[in-house]
């Protein structure tokens, strides 16, 4: 494979930027959460690429832990969103203004 480390890092950077763009742009809490997952995945791609080009397996082990934490995070976050919907009947962030007003 002649693909350089920089190419992988560029893809990771693009993914992170897209995730950040989505977090700023979207109003639906669920889609916001998906974009957060994208940003998290961008970092895992960078870690795996660094680990491969560095010749060590530590980055891959880190990614293992990141996946564990992300799974727990998704479960808790979605439970919170469902509970929010039960109380407010909406998940649009521009209607959830109880702390702002």
């Amino acid at each position: 494979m002649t693909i350089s480390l920089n190419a992988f890092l560029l893809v990771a950077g693009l993914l992170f930027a897209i995730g950040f763009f989505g977090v700023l742009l979207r109003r639906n809490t669920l889609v916001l959460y998906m974009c957060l997952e994208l940003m998290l995945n961008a970092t895992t791609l960078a870690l795996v690429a660094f680990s491969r080009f560095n010749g060590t397996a530590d980055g891959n082990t880190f990614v293992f832990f990141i996946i564990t934490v992300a799974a727990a995070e998704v479960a808790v976050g979605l439970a919170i969103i469902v509970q929010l919907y039960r109380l407010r009947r909406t998940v649009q962030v521009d209607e959830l203004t109880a702390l702002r007003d």
Partner: protein
Amino acid sequence: MADFLFYLFAALTVGSALMVALNRNAVNAAMSLFLTFFGMAGMFVLLEAYFLAILQVLVYAGAVVVLFAFIVMLLDLDNQQRKPVGKLTYAAGGAAFALMVTGVLWLFCQEQLTSPALPAEASGSVLKTYGRQLFTTYLLPMQVAGFLLLIAMIGVIVISKKTTAAQESADAE
């Protein structure tokens, strides 16, 4: 061949990530997220992290996306009317995106950031390496991760329980 596959997976990942960020329908966004995770698993295979590629498909594409799709359909969000996104939001989002992309590109255009040569043997490709690392060097983080999963499980049960009378009346409506 591997080069072509990299471009294919990179295009798939970035394209479907854009679909996640821009698609108006939440179900379509979840399906695009599935494609994104699949493309990332392909890139993990190219980086010879086979175990992580399988984990990515099982945990992310399997569990996380299904959970997202389940919640989207449970809440049935398409019945709600949407307000159009303001111009300022578009400008801020676009500016943040452009700044990040130019930052990354600028870093790579610098001469001193050259890519290291690819080691012939990938140390992360053998499953044995993970086992040894997880149970020697990273034993404490491994225990903490297991405990975290337990806490998350209990937390989800506690959060999704109906606790107050206001919730019960809101659900009854």
